[in-house]
């Protein structure tokens, strides 16, 4: 699954501007993860058309990059996230972003943006989902 990370100003309207540009081109945002700190903000989005999304972001001259999400299915209990993040840490894999992707069969689907997706899938083992699973 591809996602786009976009850096935005931390002010009212910056997310709306981005979403409107995608919406007017009939691109559906299927997932979002956004956080701000001090005067910076960043948003990770998944959409139904990654290539068209990249073209819109280029046209907006937005500071962005395309990334691959490594999806994991986590049980809804304490330490579930710790176990997944711990498996990545043990392989010295840095988590660049965390994107919630919904709930399926009582499990929370989390997308991790990492430096080395293949190694992350290997580290996550039975927790990892393939694109076919999604």
């Amino acid at each position, binding site marked *: 699954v591809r996602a786009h990370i976009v850096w935005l100003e931390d002010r009212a309207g910056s997310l709306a501007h981005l*979403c409107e540009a995608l919406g007017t081109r009939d691109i559906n945002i299927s997932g979002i*993860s956004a956080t*701000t*700190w001090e005067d910076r903000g960043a948003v990770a989005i998944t959409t139904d058309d990654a290539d068209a999304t990249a073209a819109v972001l280029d046209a907006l001259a937005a500071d962005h990059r395309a990334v691959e999400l490594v999806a994991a299915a986590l049980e809804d209990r304490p330490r579930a996230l710790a176990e997944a993040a711990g498996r990545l840490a043990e392989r010295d894999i840095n988590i660049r972003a965390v994107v*919630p992707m919904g709930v399926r069969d009582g499990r929370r689907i989390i997308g991790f943006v990492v430096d080395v997706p293949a190694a992350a899938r290997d580290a996550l083992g039975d927790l990892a989902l393939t694109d076919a699973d999604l």
Partner: protein
Amino acid sequence: VRAFIVELENRPGSLAELSEALGERGVNIVGVAGMTWNDRGAVGIITNNDATARKFLEDREGDYREVELVAAGLEDRPGSLALASRRLADRGVNILAAMTTSMLGSKVTIAFAVDDAAAAREALGELTNLGGASI
């Protein structure tokens, strides 16, 4: 519903350490969204035990802030997030964090952490009706 936005170092293990510490205290993280830039990062978490999470974060070295969440139930179609975020922007409400929390049928629930929850609820209007979904 409240969330915590926690500043983390951008390095392997920082999310694991935070989530392990909360897990050891029996706190379940029911929602998470995180992002990094340069050498820093911030993660927004929703828990099932805010009091215990708050106590841990107060005692921990590192910054965090506690924010109120306002949830919106959006149709799973192009333009729906634009509609919600534009309503917030038009009221001057700043979005501090946002995360997808559930997908139920054709509805997607988005939790917004904002700087003015009352104004956000008013701006979102009928979108705050989650139609049976929850954060």
